[in-house]
């Protein structure tokens, strides 16, 4: 699963905490390889260890065992001084922004530049450029307390970019923001990835955030990495139960199924209930019409969700198929042949489960 030579390589990372006689294994034997230019998402519920894991990347959290290689340098073997130098190459943004209250927007972005060799004038130009990049050039004399959450996060992003890092770590950076602002911030990160070629590692508990910009995803549960792959694979054919749960919350199919069960309309739905998952351009074929023409099977669409992920169409649909019993079976076979993942759903059964 781990390819060689990524910009970030975590090898067999263990993080164990000892607290009042209790031992907590926050991260268990996790290996991750992030390639240059990736937007790598780590998703999991709170307490899954994802925050601890990303802190291992810049060694804010020292791993109990394992190796951290960033840019071909083994950080775990560096001296404290060299480690500080490497940290400047890894920008970080946080859930609660972590800006200095006593400094203006300008002062906050200038903060990491004060150690640089740049002259005062060069620093000013750089800060202005960064603020422009995040769309806040008109707020440079404001204090953080005068800004909205989304604006604060933009300042934090500008600050993180000040030392020209090759890597940006986002630790639940959108979790304290409303959905609209979240989308704006994610779009900004996506743009930075494209324009600056910066490698981004995002951790979140929202599949929607992952879906919007990541090209690769890792799923964590109880400190372990349970599934990893590119976004389309994870989204189109999740293997583990937790992964499927995350995908379902994002497509809303689970809430639709709940709705069908609770509203009691399950009994009034005739025919066989099937869930279709597909990746790619199957949608170009008129499915519903095709089923009717070829098999005389009527497809009643109960739910449909089609999204573009990384430029590829990913769809999920819920059909109630009615018609001659044999014909319906044939229709399902036909769908399978079209690279559509078909799963039959028994409402009564899933109710018990």
């Amino acid at each position, binding site marked *: 699963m781990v390819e060689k030579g990524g910009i970030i390589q975590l090898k067999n990372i263990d993080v164990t905490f000892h607290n009042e006689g209790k031992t907590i294994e926050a991260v268990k034997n996790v290996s991750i390889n992030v390639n240059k230019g990736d937007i790598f998402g780590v998703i999991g519920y709170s307490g899954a260890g994802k925050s601890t894991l990303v802190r291992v990347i*810049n060694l*804010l959290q020292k791993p109990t065992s394992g190796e951290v290689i960033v840019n071909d340098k083994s950080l775990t073997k560096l001296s404290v001084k060299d*480690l*500080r*130098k*490497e*940290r*400047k190459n*890894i*920008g*970080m943004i*946080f859930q*609660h*922004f*972590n*800006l*200095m*209250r*006593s*400094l203006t927007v300008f002062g906050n972005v200038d*903060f*990491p530049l*004060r*150690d640089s060799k740049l002259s005062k004038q060069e620093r000013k130009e750089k800060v202005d450029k960064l603020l422009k990049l995040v769309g806040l050039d008109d707020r440079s004399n404001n*204090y*953080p*307390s005068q800004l909205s959450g989304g604006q604060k996060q933009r300042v*934090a992003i500008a*600050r993180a970019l000040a*030392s020209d890092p090759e890597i940006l770590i986002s630790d639940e950076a959108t979790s304290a923001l409303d959905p609209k602002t979240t989308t704006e911030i994610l779009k900004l990160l996506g743009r930075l990835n494209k324009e600056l070629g910066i490698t981004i590692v995002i951790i979140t508990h929202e599949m929607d955030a992952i879906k919007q910009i990541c090209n690769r995803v890792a799923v964590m549960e109880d400190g372990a990495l349970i599934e990893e792959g590119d976004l389309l694979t994870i989204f189109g054919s999740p293997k583990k139960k937790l992964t499927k749960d995350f995908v379902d919350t994002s497509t809303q199919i689970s809430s639709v199924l709940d709705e069908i069960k609770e509203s009691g309309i399950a009994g009034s739905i005739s025919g066989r209930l099937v869930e279709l998952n597909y990746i790619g351009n199957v949608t170009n074929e008129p499915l519903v019409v095709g089923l009717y023409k070829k098999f005389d099977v009527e497809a009643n669409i109960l739910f449909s969700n089609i999204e573009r992920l990384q430029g590829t169409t990913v769809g999920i649909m819920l059909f109630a198929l009615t018609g001659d019993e044999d014909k319906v079976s044939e229709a399902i076979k036909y769908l399978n042949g079209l690279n559509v993942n078909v799963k039959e759903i028994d409402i009564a059964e899933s109710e018990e489960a």
Partner: protein
Amino acid sequence: MTNFINTYLPNVVANWEGDNGFVVAIWQTLYMTFVSAIFAGIFGIILGILLVVTTDDGITPHKTFYNVLDKLVNLFRSIPFVILLAVIGPFTKLIVGQTIGPKGALVPLIIGTAPFFARQVQLALVEVDHGVIEAAEAMGLSPIKIIFRVYLKEGLPELIRSGTFTTISLIGLTAMAGAVGGGGLGNMAIAVGYQRFENDVTIVSMIFILILVFVIQGIGDLLVRKLEH
């Protein structure tokens, strides 16, 4: 006005000038307050920072060092000031050459105030958002830079608030030190006003001390208002 003062504050007028007069006493109180405030301030800030950075989740944790310093600060904070004055007499003599007068009061005032202020500094700096410290660490700042550029900068309004508070309680201590030989307005109020039944002297001494307290509080509040965003 002159008439009013002569009628109601006869002893204040009689004790205004001269070696043991009000003018000298006011200077002595100001001297004791500000010199001790500066030294206790420096020691307190250093000790307070050491406590904050060496604690378990500090930026350079050191269990043994923290525990020893923590106990020492507690110990010195627990000694009642009047007793401290007497106990450290020989040490005072060693440092400033005398145990009486405003100069002799300095050593016990500093030793009595510094641990108290250290605790205040520790509380003020612990309040600095841990996330900001973490962000600074992630930027590759060294501990010493984190202390100066984050802790002291972000904690400044709270530090001034504790500084004001500590200086005011220090004025209280100078009055106590004054009563046992330190001079100043405390000495005036007790040795002249109280013991010679010259009540106007006691009251005027108190008023001068109150004025000093209000001025310090006012300056402190003003600075905090300017610094907080």
